């Protein structure tokens, strides 16, 4: 298949692995964070982590949008869904994410009208087809999905659709990366930069990582060859003692980003003063909210939202895993109380979550007694 097979080519993969082995100084330990959940998923799906030399360690970052969403926001959203006049729409990734009173899918089983959409435009279409009801789109994601929400709001305004609102939970990646870099228990040698986010924001926003923290970063695609080539780029920089932003994913990511998408974002959204991230706590200027000029389509301004704050289950160590301090299987609940079928933390739900990816694809590092097949 074109544009896929080339980047899964066994010879290319072997060559990149060979180069990684040559570049990695056996006296050093390399901790490289892949920021994006898509990368985490691909690394496990293709078994890449097991092919790397033992001193090149991949740390899974906070770039899985459903994983960093605090439970309170899910509870708020599902409270809206409880209104029989509401059609609650969200991406499929959200459906099994547990709030404190269950997941959207469980709400649906109890009778709420919860629907999966693949695009916010589909939610808008549902609103047009159901003029007597109110359609809520539960918006999640980084700069990857935020432009499609922005375009949908622009279209809703242009079409004069008044029964459509967005419950905005969009977050931005740069403050999260900065929070991790500033975290005292974190020591990273380099980053594999997010691919999809960068198609929108470009590569410039990462410059502070190289400049201020002397950390190399390579913006990467999602196929095995992409990820390994990005690692080669990072290791080469480390070997040469330099730190800069490189773009491995140049076939998709323009250095300056996508201007049209950025304009739509700026027109519809503004930065929130602060926003709670699951596991990371409150981070300043790390999320988007809908501008007042679109207030009529903003669930937070037009519907009763309590803004509840719900603490994570005590035993769950999602925060440590999200920050890369703990490996997924080092969490006390991993594979025991918390499994993909009965997730306690969101990291176990999303296919991009480090715990789910670990549970699903990794096997060699797991202790023998884990009920790997009971799923």
């Amino acid at each position, binding site marked *: 298949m074109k544009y896929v097979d080339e980047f899964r080519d066994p010879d290319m993969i*072997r060559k990149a692995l060979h180069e990684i082995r040559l570049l990695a100084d056996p006296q050093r330990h390399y901790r490289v964070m892949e920021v994006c959940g898509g990368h985490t998923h691909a690394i496990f799906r293709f078994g890449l982590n097991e092919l790397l030399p033992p001193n090149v360690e991949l740390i899974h970052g906070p770039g899985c949008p459903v994983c960093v969403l605090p439970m309170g926001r899910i509870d708020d959203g599902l409270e809206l869904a409880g209104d029989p006049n509401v059609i609650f729409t969200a991406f499929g990734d959200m459906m099994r994410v547990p709030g404190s009173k269950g997941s959207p899918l469980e709400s649906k089983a109890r009778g709420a009208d919860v629907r999966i959409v693949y695009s916010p435009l589909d939610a808008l279409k549902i609103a047009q087809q159901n003029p007597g009801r109110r359609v809520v789109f539960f918006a999640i994601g980084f700069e990857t999905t935020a432009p499609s929400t922005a375009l949908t709001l622009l279209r809703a305004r242009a079409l004069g659709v008044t029964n459509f609102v967005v419950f905005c939970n969009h977050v931005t990646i740069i403050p999260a990366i900065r929070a991790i870099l500033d975290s005292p228990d974190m020591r990273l040698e380099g980053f594999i930069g997010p691919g999809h986010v960068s198609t929108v924001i470009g590569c410039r926003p990462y410059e502070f990582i190289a400049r201020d923290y002397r950390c190399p970063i390579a913006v990467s695609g999602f196929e095995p060859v992409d990820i390994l080539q990005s690692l080669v780029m990072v290791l080469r920089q480390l070997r040469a003692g330099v730190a800069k932003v490189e773009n491995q994913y140049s076939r998709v990511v323009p250095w300056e980003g996508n201007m049209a998408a950025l304009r739509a974002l700026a027109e519809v959204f503004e930065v929130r003063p602060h926003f709670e991230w699951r596991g990371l706590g409150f981070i300043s200027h790390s999320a988007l909210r809908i501008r007042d000029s679109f207030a009529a389509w903003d669930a937070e301004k037009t519907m009763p939202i309590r803004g509840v704050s719900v603490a994570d289950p005590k035993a769950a160590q999602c925060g440590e895993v999200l920050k890369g301090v703990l490996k997924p299987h080092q969490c006390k609940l991993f594979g025991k109380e918390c499994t993909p079928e009965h997730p306690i933390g969101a990291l176990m739900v999303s296919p991009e979550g480090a715990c789910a990816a670990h549970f699903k694809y990794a096997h060699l590092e797991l202790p023998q007694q884990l009920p790997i097949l009971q799923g």
Partner: protein
Amino acid sequence: MSVTQEQIDFYDKQISMSHGAGGEASRRLIEGLIRPLFSNPLLDALSDAAIFAAPAGRLAMTADSFVVQPLIFPGGSIGELAVNGTLNDLAVSAARPICLTAAFILEAGLPTEVLRREVEAMANAARRAGVPIVAGDTKVVEHGRADGIYISTTGLGQVDPRADLGPNRVQAGDQVLLSGPIGNHGMAIMLARAELDIEADIRSDTRALGGLTAALVECLGADLKWMRDATRGGVATVLNELARDAEVTVTIAEEAVPVDDVVRGACELLGLDPLQVANEGQFIAVVAGHRADAALAALRSTPGGERACRLGEVAAGRRPCVLAKAAYGGVRVVDMLIGDPLPRIC
């Protein structure tokens, strides 16, 4: 043997509650529409039960229900699925089908044309397989309490005396074969729902597998050890069931998995693993290692088996699991499907 009966025609344009009430309307529906299409001596007697002599040897019996939405999709429809699905459960049990039963739950308001079309689809599928539908039932529920048509079928078959299948017979060194390309049914349904603005020419693979499984029994006898059709949950789920029930490790070669390009493309777009996507016309067979070439040749020379392939092998495992190996050396665990990415596919 033939029974003379008065000609009854069914003119009602749609199904109503009275068609399930057991009275005159029910009689007209059954005798005017369903029985003539399914017609066979055992059914035509219209007694409370079909009565026939049991054949010698072991019998196989299976039940399945069908709630697929939409009712028609590229490559098939609920009626065809309801017959093929049950026939295939018999086929992978190495059983030659003797007869089927069919029970319908209809939603009041269903256009008669839709019912007629699905009964015809069932009759055609049963005729192709040479199996009579000998008993049935029809119920009607209020409008809004069901989704058009639900169909339950039961199948009775006679197990081939040469076959000896079971997870206990699977051992290290056995080979795992797959009957053809995977993922077509699940993706066809997904695209047919038109919830995604993706257009692709993907057709369901619904078909009866009896010819292929019979060819394997014929060729291998007791060297055929285990078979299962890879329906809901896809090949991944079936292989995990194999690993768990036989307490073995199943290793497959990632590159060996046959997936049509258009299905692969759709799966890539939607983030689905073709191994977890449903099929309605493919099965997995475990055969003794030294007979794998012969088994593959037998499958490939049978119509519909041209794209059969060797998927992987069975190894003694410390812990039952399914591993996929890529050509570059990467290994991943292939897990069962968790949750339901795609409800109501069969």
